[in-house]
């Protein structure tokens, strides 16, 4: 197991190396080049020349690349044009919000998706099966931001069940420790603050969960159907195991393999979706900030965030691969 982890970590190096080259080229090729990325569109020619000299843009390209990589490793990602603060600071402040949101969305997607997919497979061809397959089709086809607007219009503006924007009601005056608002509330025993943060999470998380939920339902259903036809299930039934044991140990455990893989891939999709849902709900996570940065052409933020997100995404996939090998002994052998 240890060697497997080390090998997977070593495999990350070429990916990250290539990614750094792509980002380096990307930054230099942006309209206006790196000096525009730092100055915005406002700089005078003299300022541009000064920045070019400061950044060492007149030096050989390899030295420039070396310096770029050193800054990346030190997490020195420059300053945001719009807020004038360090990109790393902006990221760290907003990341907990997005993590809370994606975890909530994933809990919804997995918590509903796996049981629903399983039931649909057991009742193949019946109403529940058709309803969940049809519902998941629509879930895939509906644009996330449109769904977010609909949820907001119905449950927040019309029914008033949930707040329509933000992460927490500022008038509560909650104590901040980790910037995970729900966690902070629980740690400081400010129950109302935790509950309020949770209420703010429900609608954006529901919108965000739509695509992973749909995909998890479909994959679970297909996977369970396939496993139910396997010889070992018939053998298990034939040797007189109770239905519960067959279900838990033989069907579910084997059917979960493709589902777990898809959960890892879907997490990255959640980061995409977070850009859209956070914007609709003015939820201050990295997604909404990224959307703002796109509008304001805040390139240091764009580049820094994309770099960090790529690393996070790659690490998440690594963790998923590792958990995959925990469930499936066959993967470990290879």
């Amino acid at each position, binding site marked *: 197991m240890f060697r497997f982890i080390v090998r997977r970590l070593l495999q990350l190096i*070429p*990916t990250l190396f290539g990614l750094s080259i792509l980002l380096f080229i990307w930054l230099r090729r942006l309209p206006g080049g790196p000096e525009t990325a730092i100055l915005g569109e406002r700089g005078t020619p003299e300022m541009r020349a000064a920045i070019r000299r400061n950044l060492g843009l007149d030096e050989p390209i390899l030295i420039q690349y070396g310096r770029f990589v050193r800054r990346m490793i030190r997490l020195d990602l420059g300053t945001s044009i719009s807020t004038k603060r360090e990109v790393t600071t902006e990221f760290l402040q907003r990341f907990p919000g997005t993590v809370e949101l994606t975890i909530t969305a994933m809990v919804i997607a997995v918590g509903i998706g796996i049981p629903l997919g399983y039931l649909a497979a057991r009742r193949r061809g019946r109403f529940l099966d058709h309803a969940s397959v049809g519902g998941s089709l629509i879930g895939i086809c509906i*644009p996330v931001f449109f769904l977010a607007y609909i949820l907001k219009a119905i449950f927040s503006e019309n029914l008033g069940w949930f707040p329509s924007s933000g992460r927490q009601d500022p008038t509560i005056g909650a104590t901040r420790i980790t910037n995970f608002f729900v966690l902070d509330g629980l740690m400081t025993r400010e129950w109302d603050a935790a509950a309020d943060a949770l209420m703010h999470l429900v609608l954006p998380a529901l919108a965000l969960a739509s695509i992973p939920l749909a995909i998890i339902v479909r994959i679970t259903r297909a996977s369970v159907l396939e496993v139910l036809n396997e010889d070992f299930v018939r053998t298990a039934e034939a040797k007189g195991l109770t239905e519960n044991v067959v279900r838990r140990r033989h069907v579910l455990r084997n059917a979960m393999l493709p589902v777990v893989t898809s959960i890892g891939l879907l997490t990255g999709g959640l980061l995409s979706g977070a850009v*859209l849902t956070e914007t609709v709900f003015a939820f201050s996570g990295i997604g909404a900030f990224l959307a703002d940065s796109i509008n304001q052409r805040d390139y240091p933020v764009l580049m820094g965030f994309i770099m960090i997100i790529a690393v996070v*995404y790659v690490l998440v996939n690594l963790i998923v691969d590792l958990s995959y090998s925990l469930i499936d002994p066959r993967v470990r052998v290879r």
Partner: protein
Amino acid sequence: MTTIGGKKREKIDRLAELAARDEERGVSLWQDAFRRLRRNPAAIIGAVILTVFVLVALIGPFLVPYGPTDTMGIREGVIKPGVIPGSSSEHWFGYDHQGRDVFSRMIVGARQTLLVGVVATLIGLAVGVLIGGVAGAAAGLGGRWGRWVDSTLMRFIDMLLALPSLLLAVSIAALLGPSLTTVMIAVGMVSVPVFARLLRGSMIAQSNSDYVLAATSLGVRKSKIALAHVLPNSLAPVIVQATLTLATAIIEAAALSFLGLGNPDSATPEWGVMLADAQQYLGIRPELAIYPAVAIIITALGFTLLGESMREALDPKLRK
């Protein structure tokens, strides 16, 4: 006894007859798949939706009652701040914020939406099939050097996969500046790793089959085996994926428009742009968002239904 035996014989004869007829006609994978596709109601619904969509895209622009860019509402003075008239007998879907006829824009927008989806998918397909095809051929047939080519190409694909799809599209769009071409390239590039990995996997699986062994032992050149035997047999999952990608491409193009990276020229109607534009008027006229959104959902549903049914029909496990 004789009757039972006779029935049995009859049955066997009929089976033999059927088998012989099948052999005569030579049912190919595609024919068989098409036959099963026709029996699948989901496929029929998908095909009907897409036929209507393509027809509207092709001939709709010639039939619309008003010009899609004609700001007649402003000229007639019915558009005032905070007032956008809804549907009437002259304007079925009402006006948009610039006083243009929404019904006409929806019809003409079908063409642009289809164009964005198809071109983006073709870009992804072309690049993905090129990378995946070379990698798959190299890995399956190329020996040690081939494995090196394969792993280099796959590392590149891994890099594209290291970014969440929308962020990859955003990076590309930021690089190229907002335009219709940008949207197509950005959305297309997102699907490159999917096509590449799919084709590579499929080709490697095919490379282990007996017909490749037979061709190799007959002395057929490796490049010919790859192009004439392995590639055509590996394309089925890629074609299915292309159909499904058409759906996501249309949705992702809408998302890029929503983020302000879409076609800045909102005069040419496109459903994604119309949906993005309508956000600001949700309080006054939510229908402005609902029309294009429903059109996008139905179209995406059509592509998804057809793609999923094709996947089922082509699944060798389900073949008789």
